[in-house]
C-alpha cells in the first residue's frame, strides 16, 4: 500500500483540507467566544467538541468517504488486476488470514490518514484550547469504525470485481448513496425514515454527540466483519460459484442475527464533558428510582422540527435513563401537512403507573416534573457544580496553516520518497566480480 500513489495522494489532499477546516472552526469558535466573554450562560454553550473537533474531523470524514475507498481497494484490487492473486491464494495461509492481513493494512492506512487531524488537535492545545480526553477518544473511535466500515466495503468490492475501477464504482455507490439517503430521506415519514437510518454516515452521528452507543458499536463491528467474511468467501478464484453463494447466504444470516442483537442493546455511555446526552445529574439519579414502564405517545410528524427537539432533549435521554420506555408516534405514516388540522397534533402524552399527563413542551424542564408528578416523586433539587462551564477561546489559527499547507505535505512527500528508495541488498545475494555464486 505504501508503494502505491493512492495513500500518499490521500494524505497530500487531506493536509490542506484539515488545515482549512481547523482554521475556519477556530475562527468561528473565537467569534462565538468573544460574544460569550462576559456571559457565563453563553460560555456554557461553547464546547470544543462541537466548535472545533467535529468540524476538523469533517475533512477526514469527506476524505474517508470519497478518497479512502481508492486506498482500501488497492489492498486487493491491484493483485486482482495483475493476476498476482493467483500467487497470493497459493501462499500457505487460509483465505480469512489473507483478508485479516488486508484489513490490518487498511487499518494502518487509516491511522496514517489520522496524522493531519491529530496535528490539528495538538495545535489546538498549543493555542490554549481545551480537550476532554474521553469525548476526543470517542470521536476518534467513531471515525475509526467508519473508516474500517468503508475499508471493509472496499475490500469486498475489490474481491468481487474484476477491476479496481469497477470496485471503486461499487464503493462510491455505497458511500455517496449514503449521502443521498441522508439528504433525501432523513426526516421523511414512515418507511423512508427507516431507510434513511441505513446510511453509513449515521454511524458517526452518536460519536459526534459524545455518545458511545454499545449497540451501534456491535452493529458496525458486525457489518465490518460481515463484509470481511464475504470478501474471504469471494476471494479464492478456485471455489465453485455454488459454494460461494451458499457461504454468502450463511454470512448474510449471521450478519442479520448480529444486527438484530445490536438493536436490542440499548445502553450507551455519555462521554461528553457537558453530559449533553443525559439529564442533569440530580434528575439522572431521581429517574433511576422509576421502575415502571413509561409509554410516551407523540402526536407529531417525524419531520416536524418540534419532534426533532423532543427527541434530542427528552426522548433519547429518557431512553438512556429509564429501563423500560416505549415511544409511540400517533402520526405514523402521516405527513406534517396532513396532520396539523388535528387538534391533538403537537401533544405529548406520558403514561406511567396507570396515570397519564399531556404536555406540548419539547423541553425536559417541563417533561420531567410532569413525570415525577405521575410517579409521585418530588422534583429533585439542582446540585451545585452541575453546570458545564464552557471553554471560550479567542485565538488566531491562521499561522498554523503554514504547517498544513507546506510543513506537513513536505513531510508526507519526504516519507513517500523514503518508501520509494531501492532497498539495501544483502551481501550474500550479490555476486562479486570474479566470484562464483
Amino acid at each position, binding site marked *: 500500500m505504501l508503494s502505491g500513489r493512492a495513500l500518499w495522494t490521500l494524505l497530500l489532499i487531506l493536509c490542506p483540507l484539515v488545515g482549512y477546516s481547523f482554521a475556519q472552526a477556530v475562527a468561528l469558535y473565537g467569534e462565538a467566544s468573544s460574544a460569550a466573554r462576559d456571559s457565563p450562560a453563553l460560555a456554557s454553550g461553547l464546547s470544543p467538541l462541537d466548535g472545533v473537533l467535529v468540524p476538523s474531523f469533517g475533512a477526514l470524514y469527506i476524505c474517508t468517504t470519497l478518497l479512502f475507498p481508492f486506498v482500501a481497494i488497492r489492498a486487493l484490487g491491484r493483485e486482482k488486476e*495483475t493476476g*498476482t492473486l493467483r500467487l497470493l491464494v497459493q501462499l500457505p495461509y487460509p483465505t480469512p488470514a489473507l483478508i485479516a492481513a488486508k484489513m490490518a493494512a487498511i487499518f494502518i492506512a487509516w491511522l496514517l490518514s489520522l496524522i493531519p487531524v491529530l496535528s490539528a488537535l495538538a495545535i489546538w492545545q498549543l493555542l490554549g484550547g481545551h480537550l476532554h480526553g474521553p469525548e476526543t477518544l470517542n470521536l476518534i473511535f467513531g471515525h475509526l469504525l467508519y473508516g474500517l466500515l468503508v475499508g471493509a466495503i472496499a475490500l469486498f468490492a475489490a474481491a468481487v470485481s474484476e477491476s479496481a475501477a469497477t470496485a471503486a464504482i461499487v464503493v462510491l455507490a455505497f458511500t455517496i448513496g449514503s449521502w443521498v439517503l441522508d439528504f433525501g430521506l432523513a426526516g421523511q415519514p414512515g418507511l423512508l425514515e427507516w431507510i434513511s437510518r441505513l446510511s453509513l454516515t449515521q454511524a458517526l452521528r452518536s460519536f459526534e454527540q459524545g455518545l458511545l452507543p454499545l449497540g451501534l458499536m456491535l452493529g458496525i463491528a458486525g457489518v465490518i466483519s460481515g463484509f470481511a467474511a464475504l470478501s474471504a468467501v469471494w476471494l479464492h478464484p478456485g471455489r465453485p460459484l455454488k459454494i460461494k453463494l451458499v457461504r454468502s447466504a450463511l454470512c448474510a444470516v449471521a450478519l442479520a442475527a448480529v444486527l438484530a442483537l445490536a438493536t436490542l442493546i440499548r445502553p450507551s455511555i455519555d462521554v461528553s464533558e457537558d453530559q449533553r446526552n443525559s439529564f442533569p445529574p440530580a434528575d439522572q439519579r431521581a429517574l433511576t428510582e422509576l421502575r415502571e414502564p413509561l409509554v410516551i405517545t407523540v402526536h407529531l410528524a417525524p419531520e416536524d422540527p418540534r419532534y426533532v427537539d423532543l427527541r434530542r432533549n427528552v426522548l433519547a435521554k429518557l431512553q438512556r435513563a429509564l429501563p423500560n420506555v416505549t415511544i409511540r408516534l400517533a402520526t405514523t405514516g402521516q405527513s406534517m401537512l396532513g396532520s396539523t388540522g388535528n387538534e391533538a397534533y403537537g401533544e405529548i402524552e406520558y403514561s406511567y403507573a396507570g396515570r397519564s399527563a399531556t404536555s406540548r413542551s419539547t423541553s425536559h424542564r417541563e417533561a420531567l416534573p410532569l413525570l415525577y408528578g405521575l410517579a409521585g416523586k418530588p422534583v429533585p433539587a439542582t446540585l451545585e457544580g452541575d453546570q458545564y462551564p464552557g471553554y471560550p477561546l479567542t485565538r488566531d489559527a491562521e499561522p498554523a496553516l503554514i504547517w498544513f499547507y507546506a510543513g506537513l505535505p513536505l513531510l508526507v512527500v519526504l516519507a513517500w520518497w523514503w518508501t520509494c528508495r531501492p532497498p539495501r541488498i544483502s551481501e550474500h*545475494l550479490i555476486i562479486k566480480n570474479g566470484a562464483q*555464486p
Partner: protein
Amino acid sequence: MATSSAIAISQNAQPAAALMQISGLGKRYGEQRALAEVSFDVRSREVLGLIGPNGAGKTTLLETLAGILPADGGEIFWRGAPLSLADRRDAVFYLPDGLRPWDDQFVVRSVELFAAVYGCVETRVAETVHAVGLSPVLSKRISALSKGYGRRLMLALALLTPQPVLLMDEPFDGFDLRQTREMMGLLREVAGRGRTLVLAIHQLGDAERVCDRFVLLAEGRVRGVGTFDQLRAQTNEGSGRLEDVFLALT
C-alpha cells in the same frame, strides 16, 4: 510451511511411482468446452510436458490442477487419495505465464517475501537467486524488468516454494536459446533433487529436450500420453520429431 507428511517430498521415492492421478477432469466456459475428460498421471521426480497448440487447454488444465480454477467434473488423487482444494496448496505450486507479481515492488522484496513465508534459510535464497541469474536486478522494480528477467524472478519464487510438484506455464517464454538451455539444465537439476515438474510448453523442440514424458492436448482432450519413444511407437513415427508425433496424434 508445515507440509503434511503424505505430501512432503520423498527423496527415496521411485522415479516411476505415480504421485498424482488426474481422472476425468472437465471444464467449460459457458458453451465452450475447455477440458473434456482429461485423465493422466504424474510420476514422482519426472518432468512432464503438457504439449499442445495455443488454445489447447494447457493453462486451464494447470490452473484447475492448482485449484485456482474450479473444475466442472473429475477428480485429482494424491498417492491414491482424493486431493482436496485445501490440501492442494501443500501439494502443488503453480507458476502462471506472463505474470509480474507485485509489480510496484522491488525484486528483492518479493524474493524476501517468499523466503520469509516459506522459511527459507539465507544460503538457499542466495543459491536460488544465483542459480536463476537474478542478482543484477535485485534492486530494480519488478515493473521495470525485461521479459527474461521477469521470467527468472518467477522461477526464483517457484524454486523457493517447498511443494513436491511445480506446475509451470510456458517456463521458457522470453528466454533466448542460450538462456533456455541454461534454464532447462536448472529444471533438470531441480527434478533430480526430488521435485516433480509439470511444464506447459507450446515450443515442441524445447519440450523434447527437457521432458521425460508428455501429455499431448488438443481442443481440451488428451490425444496421447507417454515417453517420446512410446508416442513414436504409437504413431509409427520411428525417427520422427515430437512435432511429427503430435501432428500424427492430432
